[in-house]
């Protein structure tokens, strides 16, 4: 969509005014600074998704809409998670981060901050795997998506 002030609120407003769900939404400017790209995860029947697509296309700031789930695509989400890391847990947490291909990006005597990317379900699995009480804080970006192979969304 056009990288204009208010474009994001038009999309968000559309979803709330028509009663559609936003599971996650990420947006940032692209390599062309006049354009920004949004990945929005929503759920609904085929009819609802068709309406959502049409309604999004109607927004003046929206340049192009594709349903990535129509074909093969890749989805990634970033999570930063701060966990308590004391005594023997310290080694255990480190091992767990390695298994999930996470990186420890900040360290204190009492905590690690881990960076983890993957699909939403992988991040969920990591949260399951870590002792609940040791999680101090999490922050997630929501999914960004791109088509597989030669499939390109470009204006």
């Amino acid at each position, binding site marked *: 969509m056009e990288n204009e002030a208010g474009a994001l609120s038009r999309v968000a*407003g559309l979803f709330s005014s028509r009663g559609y769900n936003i599971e996650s939404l990420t947006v940032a400017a692209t390599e062309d600074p006049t354009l920004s790209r949004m990945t929005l995860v929503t759920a609904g029947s085929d009819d609802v998704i068709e309406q959502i697509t049409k*309604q999004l296309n*109607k927004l003046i700031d929206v340049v192009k809409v594709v349903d990535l789930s129509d074909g093969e695509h890749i989805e990634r989400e970033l999570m930063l998670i701060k966990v308590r890391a004391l005594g023997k847990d310290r080694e255990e947490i480190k091992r767990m981060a390695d298994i999930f291909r996470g990186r420890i990006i900040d360290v204190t005597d009492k905590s690690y901050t881990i960076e983890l990317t993957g699909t939403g379900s992988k991040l969920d699995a990591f949260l399951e795997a870590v002792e609940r009480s040791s999680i101090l804080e999490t922050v997630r970006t929501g999914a960004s998506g791109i088509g597989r192979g030669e499939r390109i969304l470009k204006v």
Partner: protein
Amino acid sequence: MSTELTGAEITVRCLQKEGVDYIFGYPGGAVLFIYDELFKQDKVKHVLVRHEQAAVHAADGYARSSNKIGVALVTSGPGVTNAVTGIATAYMDSIPLVIISGQVPTHAIGLDAFQEVDTVGITRPCVKHNFLVKNIDELAATIKKAFYIASTGRPGPVLVDIPKDVSQQKAEFIYPNSVTMRSYNPVTRGHAGQIRKAVQLILEAKRPMIYTGGGVILSDAAERLTELVQMLGFPCTNTLMGLGGYPATDKQFVGMLGMHGTYEANMAMQHCDVLIAVGARFDDRVIGNPKHFFNEDRKIIHIDIDPSSISKRVKVDVPIVGNVTDVLDELIKQLKARKEKPEQTALDAWWTQIDAWRARNCLKYDRSSTVTKPQWVIEKLYEVTEGNAFITSDVGQHQMWAAQFYKFDLPRRWINSGGLGTMGFGLPAAMGVQFANRENVVACITGEASIQMCIQELSTCKQYNLPLKIINLNNRYMGMVRQWQEFFHGNRYAESYMDALPNFVKLAESYGHVGMKIERPEDVEGALKEAFQLKERLVFMDFITDQTENVFPMVPGGKGLSEMILV
């Protein structure tokens, strides 16, 4: 050095370039520079209303009756919030408007300044698009875009918010000749392959029905539609927004359909085997409960410029996205090229059925009543004006009676708030209609509840000598609310009685107009004739009508089209 103009001058120059002859508005702090520039020229004539809601309704009535873009100018804060009802009204009915609003200076935005509201935020859900112009260099191009967006594709209101400092700053005035936007390219022509499929369905139809809406009016397709309907010999119904799209006095017209549609229109809609929907959107007031609608099997062809209108409430078989005029042209062309015709014996049998439904005479009412029936007033109005008036209406029973009993043969003659259902629309809209059609007769059909929602505009009418004729169907109730309370709420008339009504005759006179009170049915025609002979004056006609009259037929909410309550 090139001459630089202020933002206010640029704004007015843009309006001139767009050929705007009237702008409806109300001044205030944030738009003072723009008003100053309006004052210095005479190409764009400003009409001073008495409330910003009326400014937008007037611009709206102007647009609906003329196929031009209506323009309104309001100040920041309360100017904008007052305008919102008007903007939402236009949005729901897809009316092309450009609303220019003042905003507090850019450096004060977000600081809860005096008369500040988040205009772009407040209006976002009820405009086709809106802009906040923070940079003087973008002002002219933005206004150009606003006019382009408002009038192309599915039309709608577009708002341009101009901070006060931007209206003072200077820039070179360059008005673009055209607009290209990578994110906005509305289609016009329909898909030829889809049109071919539609032709095939039409030729195979045994019980066809043509159902048309506001899209026919908006794209000026009434002539094409009439040609198509008469070429095929099919029955045609219009929605509330589509009245005048097909001549109401023609025998192929089966009346309006929907909640208060005719028996024959609703039955034909329910029982047809091929439905051709043109510039209409299958809304809840038109087809009632969609589940019931699908109890009968039929093929649907849907022509509409807005893809999101297609398969929204009703799944269709042949969607055709395009401008109604262009699609109908192509459809007619393709039909003429084919040798086959729809089967005549089947069509005859279908008309026999429709005529049997028609014989039910669903719009009958007591013509010998000693109390004035509202339907009687509308029928007499139709006769006295010879069906040639521009009619605006407010919202409620009077609106439905007007739609049922005033037979519109021409498009853009019936001006009402169909989608939003805005009480208070009628009078200010009639002002706009009169400005766009100075030589024509303009009447506003209203009720004693609706008219009081924008009654202050009688003052505007005086200032500009607008000779409107106001037909007030005064039943001392919010009639439609009372009707629902009678049918669905055990006759408990909660707050629907209009107590302490003004003396409308004196009220009209105090504004400098002519007031008339008509109580007996036998006086209706004479009074109307007298009023319409006063060509230079606004006449407020207060008709004291039957308090208990209801609008029939009626499809109750949640029911299907063939489940009408009849007289």
